[in-house]
C-alpha cells in the first residue's frame, strides 16, 4: 500500500501503457478479449484517480503526491509529477472519459488491437500533460498525445468524404483532417518548443516550481534583448501553442475537420480532454509564468475569447452536419474558458482590490469547472451523434427529422445532454458559465456583455440541432424497412449514464468539485 501511495501518479500515468503492451501480445483475432482487456485496464487508472481524489487534501498548499526521478540529467530535466486541484480535476476527467470512450468504441471492427493500444497511449499522453511538473516532461507528453490521435483520425475516421486541395488534388477527408490537426498542433508547439528551450538555456532547469520563481525574478537583458521583449515573445509563443489546442478563434479551423472525421470515441476524447490541454496550458504555464504579460494582453485574449464564443455560435448555427455543429459548439464553449482566464489575467497577481480579486477567483473557478463540464457534455454530444450516425450513416441534419417517436430513449438522452450544453440551470453547464460570466463581468464588462449575446446563439443552435433531429415532420425513410432506426442499446446507455449522472450532480451540487478547484485557483496565482 505504501508503494501504491507513494507512486500513485506514476501508476496512473503508466498503467495504460502497460496495458497496451499486454494487448500487443494478445492474438489479433480475439477481438473480444482485446476490447475487454482495454476496458478493464482503463478502469484501473480511473479507480486509482478516484482514490487519489479521496486522499487529496484540498486545504494543503502546493503540489501533492509529488514524485521526482532523474531523467535527462544532461539538460537538467527530471521526471517530476505532482497534482494540485487543477490537475486533479483534469486527471479525473481524463480517466473517466477514457473507459467510456473505449466502451463506445466496441463498435469498431477494424484493426481493434491497434486501435485499443493507441487509445491507451493517448490516455497516458494526456495524463502526462496534466501531471507534469517539469516543463520538458510537459512538452514530451504534449507532443506524444498527438501521435495516437493522428492515427485514430487517420485510420478509423469516417471513410466518406473528400477534400479538394489547391491545384485540384483530391484527398480523403480524414487524411486531410488528421494532417491538418497534426501540422497545426506541431506548428503551434514549435514556438512552445523554442520558448521551452530558451527557458532551459537560461535557467539550467525545467522544474516548474523553480521556473515560476526564477523566470519571474529575471531582470536585465537576455540574448542582447531586454527581458520584457523576450518575455513578450515567449509569452506569445506559449499563447499560440495553447490557443491552437483550445482552440481559440482564429486558430480553430483544424477543429471542425478533425472532429467531424474522427471516430466517435476519438471525438469524445478530442473534445472532452484534448481541448482541455490547451486551456490547462494557459492556467498552468501562461498565467504563472507571464503574469505581467498576461495582464498587458488580457484585452487581446478576451477579444479572442469573445470572438470564439460569438463566431463559434454563429458557425454552429450555420452547419447542416450534426457533428460539425457539435464541433463548433466546442469552439463556443471553450471561449468561455478563455474568457475566464482573460479576466483573471486582467486582474493580475497580488491585486490589492479585494472585490476584483474575488471576481478573478470566481472567473477562474468558472473556467476550470467549465473545462470539466464541457468535457462531460461535449463527450456526451459527440457520442450521441456517433450513435445515430452508426445507424443512419448520415450526419446531415436535413436527412433527419421527427425521430423522437421512433427512438424515445435516445431522444430523451439527447435532449438532456443538449440542455446541459445549452446551459440550462440545474445542469452543469449553467453553473460554470454563470461563474465565468459573474467573475468576468466586473473585470471585462464589455467583452462579457458581448459574450452573453453569444450565449443567446448558443441556445439557438442547440435548439436548432435538436429540432432538426428529433422534432418536426418525421422523415419516413427511417421509419420502415431496412433503414428502420433502432433504439439506443444497453452498452450505449452505459456509456451515457455516468456522464448524465455527473452532469446532473454538478448542476445541483457543484460544491464537491469546486472546493478542490477553488483552493487550487487561489494558490495558482
Amino acid at each position: 500500500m505504501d508503494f501504491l501511495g507513494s507512486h500513485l501518479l506514476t501508476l496512473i500515468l503508466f498503467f495504460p501503457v502497460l496495458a497496451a503492451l499486454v494487448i500487443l501480445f494478445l492474438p489479433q483475432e480475439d477481438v473480444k478479449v482485446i476490447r475487454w482487456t482495454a476496458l478493464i485496464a482503463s478502469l484501473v487508472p480511473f479507480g486509482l484517480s478516484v482514490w487519489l481524489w479521496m486522499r487529496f487534501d484540498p486545504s494543503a498548499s502546493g503540489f501533492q503526491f509529488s514524485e521526482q526521478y532523474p531523467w535527462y540529467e544532461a539538460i537538467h530535466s527530471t521526471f517530476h509529477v505532482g497534482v494540485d486541484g487543477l490537475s486533479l480535476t483534469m486527471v479525473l476527467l481524463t480517466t473517466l472519459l477514457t473507459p467510456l470512450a473505449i466502451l463506445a468504441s466496441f463498435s469498431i471492427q477494424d484493426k481493434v488491437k491497434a486501435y485499443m493500444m493507441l487509445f491507451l497511449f493517448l490516455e497516458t499522453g494526456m495524463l502526462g500533460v496534466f501531471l507534469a511538473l517539469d516543463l520538458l516532461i510537459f512538452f514530451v507528453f504534449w507532443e506524444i498525445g498527438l501521435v495516437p490521435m493522428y492515427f485514430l483520425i487517420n485510420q478509423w475516421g469516417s471513410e466518406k468524404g473528400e477534400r479538394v486541395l489547391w491545384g485540384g488534388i483530391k484527398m480523403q477527408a480524414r487524411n486531410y483532417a488528421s494532417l491538418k490537426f497534426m501540422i497545426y498542433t506541431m506548428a503551434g508547439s514549435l514556438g512552445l518548443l523554442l520558448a521551452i528551450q530558451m527557458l532551459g538555456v537560461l535557467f539550467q532547469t525545467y522544474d516548474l516550481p523553480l521556473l515560476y520563481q526564477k523566470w519571474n525574478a529575471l531582470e536585465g537583458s537576455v540574448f542582447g534583448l531586454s527581458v520584457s521583449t523576450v518575455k513578450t515573445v515567449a509569452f506569445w509563443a506559449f499563447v499560440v501553442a495553447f490557443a491552437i489546442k483550445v482552440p481559440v478563434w482564429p486558430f480553430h479551423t483544424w477543429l471542425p475537420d478533425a472532429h467531424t472525421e474522427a471516430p466517435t470515441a476519438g471525438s469524445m476524447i478530442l473534445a472532452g480532454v484534448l481541448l482541455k490541454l490547451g486551456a490547462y496550458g494557459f492556467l498552468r504555464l501562461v498565467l504563472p509564468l507571464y503574469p505581467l504579460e498576461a495582464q498587458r494582453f488580457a484585452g487581446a485574449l478576451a477579444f479572442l475569447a469573445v470572438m470564439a464564443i460569438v463566431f463559434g455560435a454563429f458557425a454552429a448555427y450555420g452547419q447542416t452536419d450534426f457533428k460539425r455543429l457539435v464541433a463548433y459548439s466546442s469552439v463556443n464553449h471553450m471561449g468561455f474558458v478563455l474568457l475566464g482566464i482573460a479576466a483573471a489575467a486582467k486582474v493580475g497577481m497580488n491585486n490589492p482590490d479585494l472585490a476584483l480579486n474575488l471576481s478573478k477567483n470566481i472567473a477562474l473557478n468558472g473556467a476550470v469547472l467549465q473545462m470539466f463540464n464541457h468535457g462531460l457534455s461535449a463527450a456526451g454530444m459527440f457520442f450521441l451523434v456517433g450513435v445515430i450516425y452508426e445507424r443512419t450513416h448520415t450526419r446531415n441534419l436535413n436527412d433527419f427529422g421527427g425521430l423522437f417517436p421512433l427512438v424515445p430513449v435516445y431522444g430523451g438522452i439527447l435532449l438532456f445532454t443538449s440542455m446541459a450544453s445549452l446551459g440550462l440551470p440545474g445542469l452543469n453547464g449553467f453553473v460554470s458559465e454563470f461563474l465565468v460570466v459573474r467573475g468576468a463581468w466586473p473585470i471585462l464588462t464589455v467583452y462579457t456583455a458581448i459574450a452573453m449575446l453569444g450565449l443567446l446563439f448558443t441556445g439557438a443552435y442547440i435548439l436548432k440541432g435538436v429540432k432538426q433531429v428529433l422534432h418536426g415532420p418525421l422523415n419516413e425513410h427511417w421509419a420502415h424497412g431496412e433503414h428502420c432506426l433502432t433504439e439506443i442499446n444497453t452498452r450505449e446507455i452505459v456509456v451515457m449514464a455516468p456522464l448524465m449522472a455527473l452532469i446532473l450532480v454538478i448542476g445541483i451540487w457543484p460544491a464537491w468539485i469546486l472546493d478542490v478547484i477553488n483552493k487550487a485557483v487561489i494558490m495558482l496565482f
Partner: protein
Amino acid sequence: MQFPILSVIVFTPMVAALLILLINSERKTEIRVTALAAATLALLLSLWVYFTYDKVAAGYQLIEKYNWMPMLGISLYFGVDGISAPLVLLTGVVMFTGVLISWGIEDRPREFFAFLFILASGVFGVFVSLDLFMLFFFYEIAVFPMYLLIAIWGWIKTREYAAMKLTLYLFIGSVVSLVGALAMYWQSGLRTFDMLALEQAAFSPAFQNLWFPFVFFGFAVLGGIFPFHNWSPDGHVAAPTAVSMFHAGVLMKLGAFAALRVGIMLLPEGAKTWGGLIMALALVNIVYGAFIAMVQTDFKYIIGFSSVSHMGLVMMGFSTMTKLGLTGAGMQMFSHGVMTALFFAAVGMVYDRAHTRDIPKLGGMAKPLPLVAVAFIIGGLVSMGMPGFSGFVAEFPIFMGIWQVKPLVAIIAAISIVVTAAYIMLAVRRVFFGSMPAEFEGHIGTITVYDKVALVLLCVIMIGLGLFPSVMVPWVQTGVQHILSLLGGA
C-alpha cells in the same frame, strides 16, 4: 595484459570477410550463416565495448598501442572515448541488422557479404583509431567497398552514376583532409600521428585557420554537409537496402566523427574561426534538406534528403561548440544512425515487394506489411523529433546549444521540424495507408522473421533511448567534456 577487444572488433569483420570468400559461392546458406555469426559476434563485442567503457573515469579507454612504423610515428593505436563508444555500438547494431535484412540477396551473396564486412571493418577502425594515419587508412577502407556494393547490387537505373559520384566525392574529400593532416603532422614537429599528442600540439592560430577548412570540410563531405551533400541522396537511392543502411546509418557518421575528431579537436582555434560558416551551412542543410525531402516522390529520395537534413543537425551541434550542442550532436549521430537504418530497411522491404518506390503508385502497404508500417512510423516519429523517441533526446540539446550561441538560428532551424512532420506523415499515409493499387493485390508477400528481428531491434533501441536518455548521454558527455577542454574550457 587486457584482452585486445578493440583490435578484435576491428578485425572480426575483416576475418569474416576472408572466411566468406573461402566458401564456395554456391553454398549460399553457409555464407549467410557465417555472415550472421560474425555480425552477431561484432554486435556482442560492440555491446561489450560500450558497457565496459567507464564513464566515470572518462577519457580514452581500452587503449591498445602497437608500434607500426616508429620512423614516421605511425602506430596501431586504438581506444574509445565517450563519443566513439556509442558509434561503435551503432556500427555493431547496423551491421547485425544489415546482415539480417540482406538474407534474401541471391546474386553473389558471397561477394556481397565480404565487401560489406570489409566496409564494416573500416568503419570500426575509424571509430576506434587514435592515430591519424590509421584513421585515414580505415576511412578509405570504409569508403571504397561502397562503390562495388552500390554498383553491383544497387538499383539498376542509377547505380553506376551514383556509385561513381559517391566514391569520387568521398575520395576527394578524404584526400583533401589528408593534405591537411600531413600539414598538421609536419607543423607539429612531433613526428607522430598520435592524435592524443597532436591534441596538445598547440598549433598557431594562423596555421589552424588556414588548415581547418581543408580537414573539416574534407571529412564533412561524408557527413553530407551542404553544398557537398549531393552525392548522398543519389547514393542512398541507388544502394541496396543493407548498404543504404550502412551508408546513411554509419558512414555519414564516419564523416561527421572524423570532422570532429580531426578537425575540431585538433584545430580548435580554427574551429572557432570557421564555426560561423559551419553553422550557416548546417542551417542550410537542415532547412533546405527538409524542404527538398518534402517535394520528392521517390520514397527513398525522401529518406535520403531527410538524412541530409538530420546530418545538418549534427554539424549544427558541432558548430555551437557548447556542451549541450556537442552532446546533442553525439546523441544525434547515434539516433539518426539507428533511425535511418530502420527507414531504409522499411523502404527496402516495401520496394522488394512492390518493385517501385514511386509514392503515387504505392498505397495500402500497412495491410500486408503491418510491422513495416509500424516500424516506419516509429522511425518517422524519431525523425520529426517526437518526444519519447531518441530523436527528441538528441535534437533537444542541440537546439539548446544553438540557443546559447545564436538564438535566431535556433528559431530558423526549428522550421524544419514542422516540414519534417509534414513529409513523413505524407509519406506514411501515401505508402502505407489508403487503398492499395489493384496490381499489388495479393502480390505483396509477408516479411521474413529475419526482417522482423531487425526491425524490432531498431525500434526498441530508439524508444528505449528516447525514454531513458541516461543509457547513453553520460557516455557522450564524457567525450564532450574532453572536447570542451580542448576548445579552451568553453
